[in-house]
């Protein structure tokens, strides 16, 4: 016991940056429990990515099988649970991505483990700090089950640095694969060259006051000028102006970039829950009473129709003068 099994998402070139945050937490938990970090890679390309992941963890275990080519909680959770047992894990962890949130509680059920979701801090060996009530409070929970499952809020843990020596890589069999009648059908995604919301240094978000999806083009120009990701309020995604996966907030994505632009967003607590960890917040809103101004570092009271094009020109000037 005492080890930490860290489920890591990866691409062909290595761990996703979200997984590096998970590994930072995993190291802290391993130190607290007196064990080591075992990074677990499941799915196609796991063996190929293992070398790059080994720079960050003492051990890397890969599991590949044609039956695991598409992620399904039903097939992945039993593998996580089995390997947690085989590797003497006291803590099983993943980043709170849509995969981590889907997978880890299911694995927890198989392990009879208590589960702390979306944590922001390791407070003590078995104590975790996590935001509750849309980030309006932080709760410290103590979990007393022999194995503990955790999902980690990416924005609260800096990406892990490479270790001095590469970890040992091994592979494990998939075992019997049973999807419990579930099948992956297809993924609808809009390809974008912009950074992931979770990783971006700058995020440009628009709200209901943008009125139409077409109007978001000007925000996209601003985003592209700054290498930013695009975000939105729920009102904008619900109205179909922009894709649902742009939603920032309590029930959307949690972001904490260096710079966050909230344009024509009123600042409901559910929206703030997803972005108030940002370093610098800029709000543009025509209503000077809008609650967003209470948390913004810099506010512009005015219409986006005028403010945003001017902002783009002004930033271009500053960039050109450097």
């Amino acid at each position, binding site marked *: 016991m005492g080890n930490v099994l860290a489920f890591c998402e990866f691409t062909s070139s290595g761990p996703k940056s979200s997984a590096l945050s998970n590994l930072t937490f995993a190291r802290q938990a391993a130190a607290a429990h007196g064990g080591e970090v075992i990074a677990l890679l499941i799915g196609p390309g796991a063996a190929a990515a293992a070398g790059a992941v080994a720079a960050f963890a003492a051990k890397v275990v890969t599991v590949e099988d044609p039956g695991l080519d598409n992620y399904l*909680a*039903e097939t992945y*959770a039993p593998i996580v649970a089995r390997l947690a047992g085989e590797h003497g894990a006291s803590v099983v962890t993943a980043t709170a991505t*849509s995969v981590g*949130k*889907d997978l880890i*509680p*299911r694995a*927890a*059920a198989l392990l009879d483990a*208590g589960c702390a*979701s*979306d944590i922001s801090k390791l407070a003590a060996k078995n*104590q975790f700090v996590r935001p*509750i*009530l849309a*980030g*309006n*409070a*932080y*709760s*410290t*929970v*103590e979990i*007393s089950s022999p194995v503990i499952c955790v999902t980690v809020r990416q924005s609260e843990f800096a990406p892990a640095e490479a270790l001095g020596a590469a970890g040992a890589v091994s592979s494990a069999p998939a075992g019997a694969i049973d*999807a*419990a*009648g*579930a*099948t*992956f*059908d*297809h*993924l*609808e*995604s809009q390809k974008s060259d912009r950074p992931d919301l*979770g990783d971006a240094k700058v995020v440009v978000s628009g709200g209901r006051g943008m009125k139409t999806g077409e109007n978001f083009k000007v925000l996209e120009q601003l985003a592209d000028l700054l290498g930013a990701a695009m975000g939105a309020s*729920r009102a904008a995604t*619900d109205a179909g102006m922009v*894709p*649902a*996966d742009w939603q920032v907030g*309590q*029930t959307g*994505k949690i972001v904490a970039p260096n*710079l966050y632009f909230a344009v024509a967003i009123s600042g409901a*607590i559910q929206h703030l829950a997803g972005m108030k960890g940002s*370093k*610098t*917040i800029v709000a543009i809103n025509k209503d000077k009473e809008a609650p967003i*101004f*209470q948390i*913004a*570092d*810099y*506010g512009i009271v005015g219409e986006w129709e005028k*403010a945003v094009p001017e*902002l783009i020109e*002004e930033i271009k000037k*500053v960039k050109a003068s450097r």
Partner: protein
Amino acid sequence: MKILVPIKRVPDPALKTKVKDGAIDLTGANWVVNPFDEYAVETALRLLENGEAGARVAGAEIVVVTIGPEDAAQQLRSALATGADRAIRVDAEDKALDAGVVVAALVQIIAAEKPDLVILGKQAVDGDANQVGQMLAGKLGWAQATFAASVELAADQKSVLVGREVDAGVEYKRIGTPGILTVDLRIVSPHSVKNNVTPATFAYPDGPRYASLKGIMAAKKKPMDVKKLSDYGVTTTPVTREVGIELPAARAAGQIVADIPTLVKKLADEAKAI
């Protein structure tokens, strides 16, 4: 087809959070049905009715269940008022519960009720845990389709095709019955739920329905069973305990800037953000 919807009451999310004696101060809280659970009830209704004709399809039943104190009966009544048929309350103080205990109780209720689908909210907006549905599916060994933004019931009622909101977009996953669904915000959009009975062109109002006066009256007569955890043989005890609560540090007050050139200058020189 029978659908079970577990619902939780939560303090009104629109009200300010207060802390007293190291815990969230809930004196005088205004309790409401967790919004996602309202969406779960609405999803169940849309799956089991002919939206155009209004009436419920034959053989359909919706059972709502909560594990909670006596007051939580009110939230069950609200669900009955919007159209659920029957309610079960398993009596327990909030302090005696954690996700593991709730799941253990739901497992037993499911064994007794044998629903074809269990539809939960994706998260309770007080604890923001987002875990009960997944844990329940794991314990039962059933398939799970979490974060559902759309659902289509197959004509033979043996499977559902679910559009799940994932980080990369929308993932479509098919699960058979019995199975577990947890619902996201957009499940209550006008065309998100299809059941092969309601015409595909039919548009529901955006959002969950309100209870009609008639519905509220009818709800008073609908059956509500009250059980104890021990009636279901649940001996699981909580493994999660809250040991502290803190309010987040307030952000330092910001400033309204006069014009865009000033803003850009401040972003460059003061915040060093561009």
